């Protein structure tokens, strides 16, 4: 159990775009850091330690903890890198939480970033998979997701139209988010008419590649409310990895989410997540996950996800809005993506969401997804946890 309760007291994001040739990596990182410091009303001298990360092999430059110190504020400060593939951003948030919760650091700056425009995304992802057993047929992130979607579709008889409804939701929500890369509404027909990339996934079912950075400042309970009057308290975190080779996966239901969420609810006293949680920022790289993964999370029973999506319950104004930011389908600077989910969930708690604000948020969830089918999950509250 944490020695200190921890809150998010400030967040900052770049304006995410498909290509940012105007800045190099450290300059991009600096934009997010300066924004987060301004949001918290702090200077870099207030920061005790930094956690930074992006995805291995992307950009072909490793050791961001070293080369970015001018931009990150890491010059002559304790700085450590975490990188866990697609979950990097959410792992960064969990790592920052651990550092502050341990009582060893009072204020920690957490940074995730990526310049996908300077990377061969599919080539780089391939290097994360086993060279002997996985790579022969491997086709980046999309094919594994497609195999999950196919398994679920076949078991429950949903169609790509059901999944398209999720994409329509997130792309509509993104129009409210000035940081999102893709801010354009689409129709069901447009999603279904977009090119089939890997059956059953259409082009408009999946995330783009984005340049962007995100920074989040976490502080211990000793100072959190002096920095931010309504901080977002971290109630708990959980994560799971479940396979060695992709063929080991139980594709069609995401075991890592099922077990991570169950642990998080148990640790934090959540008994009815659908009623007790006000908003979810789901790391949802493709539309079918918007159906399958909320079932694994325990929001609704298995097989009922599509019906729940069609009811409008997860739209803005519904009982449990998902991805008010537009989510990953609208914006995906991979090493930052999981941390953006954290920043967006905390923004909702703080009431700073502007056009994308869900009214009266008391409890929020963010998730991370990576590699293939790993899950990180974090729970935040407006109230300080009483444990």
């Amino acid at each position: 159990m944490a020695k200190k309760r921890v809150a998010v007291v400030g967040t900052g994001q770049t304006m995410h775009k498909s290509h940012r040739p105007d800045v190099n990596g450290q300059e991009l990182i600096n934009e997010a850091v300066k924004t987060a410091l301004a949001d918290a009303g702090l200077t870099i001298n207030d920061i005790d330690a930094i956690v930074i990360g992006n995805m291995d092999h992307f950009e072909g430059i490793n050791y961001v903890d070293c080369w970015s110190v001018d931009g990150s504020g890491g010059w002559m400060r304790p700085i450590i890198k975490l990188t866990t593939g697609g979950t990097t951003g959410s792992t960064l948030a969990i790592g920052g939480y651990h550092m502050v919760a341990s009582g060893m650091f009072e204020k920690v700056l957490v940074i995730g970033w990526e310049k996908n425009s300077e990377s061969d995304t599919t080539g780089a992802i391939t290097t994360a998979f086993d060279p002997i057993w996985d790579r022969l047929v491997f086709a980046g992130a999309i094919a594994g997701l497609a195999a999950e979607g196919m398994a679920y579709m076949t078991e429950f008889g949903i169609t790509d139209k059901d999944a398209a409804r999720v994409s329509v939701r997130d792309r509509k929500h993104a129009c409210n988010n000035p940081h999102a890369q893709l801010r354009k509404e689409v129709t069901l027909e447009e999603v279904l008419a977009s090119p089939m990339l890997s059956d059953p996934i259409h082009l408009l079912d999946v995330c783009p590649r984005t340049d962007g950075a995100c920074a989040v400042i976490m502080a211990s309970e000793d100072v959190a409310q002096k920095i931010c009057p309504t901080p977002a308290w971290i109630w708990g975190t959980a994560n799971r990895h479940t396979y060695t080779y992709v063929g080991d996966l139980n594709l069609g239901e995401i075991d890592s989410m099922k077990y991570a969420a169950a642990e998080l609810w148990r640790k934090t006293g959540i008994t009815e997540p659908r009623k007790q949680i006000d908003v979810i920022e789901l790391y949802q790289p493709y539309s079918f996950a918007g159906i399958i993964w909320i079932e694994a999370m325990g929001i609704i029973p298995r097989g009922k996800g599509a019906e729940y999506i069609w009811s409008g319950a997860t739209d803005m104004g519904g009982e449990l809005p998902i991805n008010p930011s537009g989510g990953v389908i609208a914006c995906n600077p991979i090493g930052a993506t999981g941390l953006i989910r954290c920043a967006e969930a905390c923004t909702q708690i703080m009431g700073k969401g502007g056009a994308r604000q869900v009214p009266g948020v008391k409890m929020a969830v963010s998730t991370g997804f990576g590699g293939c089918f790993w899950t990180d999950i974090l729970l935040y509250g407006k109230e300080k946890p009483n444990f």
Partner: protein
Amino acid sequence: MARGDHLVISSGDAVQPFHYAVGLHGSKFFHELKENRRIVGIKCPSCGKVYTPPRRVCGDCFVENKQWLEVGPQGVIDTYTIVRYAFIDPETGKQKPVPYGYGFIRFDGADTRFQHFVELNDARPIKIGARVEPVFAEERKGTIRDILYFRILD
């Protein structure tokens, strides 16, 4: 010089310096495949799960697997996709052969799935639950390419 040419990083004709060990368990799998056209798996003594590809440790139980079994060679497609988008395979520097069937095949007697190419054939469309069998290469070298692809039987 075209715009951006001065920024291109390439390795010319150099090959990548990676020489991966497959371990004793991988070696046995590939030896049986090459010499006998047999598929082998290994069973966890604790939970009974049969792993193909075989490996030394059952991650679930964290105990050493010791009981070798012959599985397949026929199996069933647990799930699949048809990859249609073109991209360069970083393993070869060439485009992947799109469109191709990407199957998660559970060999008869195994519990985990084996990933390989599945034929795309209008007469016998790829689907979950379809039975398949491997088509072996005539000249086998002890690699995963000793299976050319999986043929759909029904």
